[in-house]
């Protein structure tokens, strides 16, 4: 991942525009996917 702030912001903005009007169901699925990954047994213990 490049870390020029301008480029990062541009990518973030593009990602934001993609989900800006997403419905609740898609958003909730995304939240659950991320939460599940963060709580998997193998994460954090390494």
């Amino acid at each position, binding site marked *: 991942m490049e870390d020029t702030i301008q480029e990062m912001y541009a990518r*973030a903005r593009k990602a*934001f525009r993609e989900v800006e009007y997403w419905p609740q169901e898609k958003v909730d699925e*995304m939240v659950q*996917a*991320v939460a599940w990954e*963060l709580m998997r047994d193998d994460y954090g213990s390494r």
Partner: protein
Amino acid sequence: MAVDESGIGNAEDKVNKIKNKTLGTLYDMRNAKTCGMIEENKALGIRKFAKPIGVIANVVPCTNPESTICCLALSTLKTRNAQIVSPHPRTQKTSYETVQHVRKALEKIGAPVDLVQCIKQTSHAKTSELMANCDYAVATGGAALVKVVYAAGKPAQTVGAGNVVSIVDETADLPTAAHKIRLSKVANNSASCSSENAVALYESIYDDMIEALKAEGGYLCDTEEREKLRQYMWPDGVHLNREIVARPATWIAQNVGLTVPDDTRFLMVVGEKVGPEDRFSGEKISPVLTVWKWTDFDEMLDRLEQILKFSGEGHSASIHTENDERRVKLALRANVGRIVCNMPHAHANSGGWTTGLPTTDTLGCGSWAGNIFSGNVNWENFLNYTLLSIPKEEYIPEVGDLCGEYLAKWGRD
């Protein structure tokens, strides 16, 4: 991983914290409506629409480089925002790694991975540039960071220093209170701003409570040991020695040159004065607990006000009592965002399974600490709203009706 990278905290506590905070955040938002129309009041002709903000900068501290991302990633995703993490230089690998996990999950379901990014090689210049370019910022860090964040000129959620005093009175079950205080005090070696910095014990239970704290692994320093510890903790008399942040009590004792039992979990010192002349009255971010004694509850509340003015105003306070009048009195007097009763403070003030407080790793401390919000920062802080108004039935109130009590008492002239 963060423990290896920074020397801060305790690996097992950290793993538990990540799971608990992620689960708590997920639980709090489980039924929340964050998309489209979220409220309708037909009588007023108002419909309320939730809108995202855009790109949010997330400045993450070295004392909590993973969990802060977990809570805030869920919160900003739930509200359809993108986030760019600015890690602390001491823990940037850990924060970067955490963000990779988030991105992996986004990729799996076909969501845009760039909704959560992390600066790889961080610097002050990059953090400032990020804050100036983002649409909103959330920064979990001390007073110096608050100034930098607001100087960037974007709306921002910030936090304040914690200096939690836990009051214990004669109605509390002392061994239980001591156990809860220990759990909270030694969690992650006191890396959290929510761990008790002091206990304030009622005089009639003072000796018994000290014994109860000793039974939990507390070691009470004598005057000479206290002075050695003070010189080590504040070498210049003002600034806290960063080396001691979140180190085990035995590590600190060894470096100070104190002989303590191997099972010592925290060091205790008697509080002498409030303010800069006695640094033990302020924030310590280490397993060092200041002990105060009080005889009159109102005097203790006055003293707490002074302690908080010196350090920790806006953050949190704690009390162990069965006397609800004292709890209410404390809530009316103490200028803090939350007061935790009869619970291990650090496991409750930022959310937990025996409290109704929202789960967070970012504790707003209100205007008392230069923040815009005094609550637990959560998904609700990352939305804009559009109110759609259609005409309702006209109603113009009579001023005389609205000022009725005043007019009845004072007259119309």
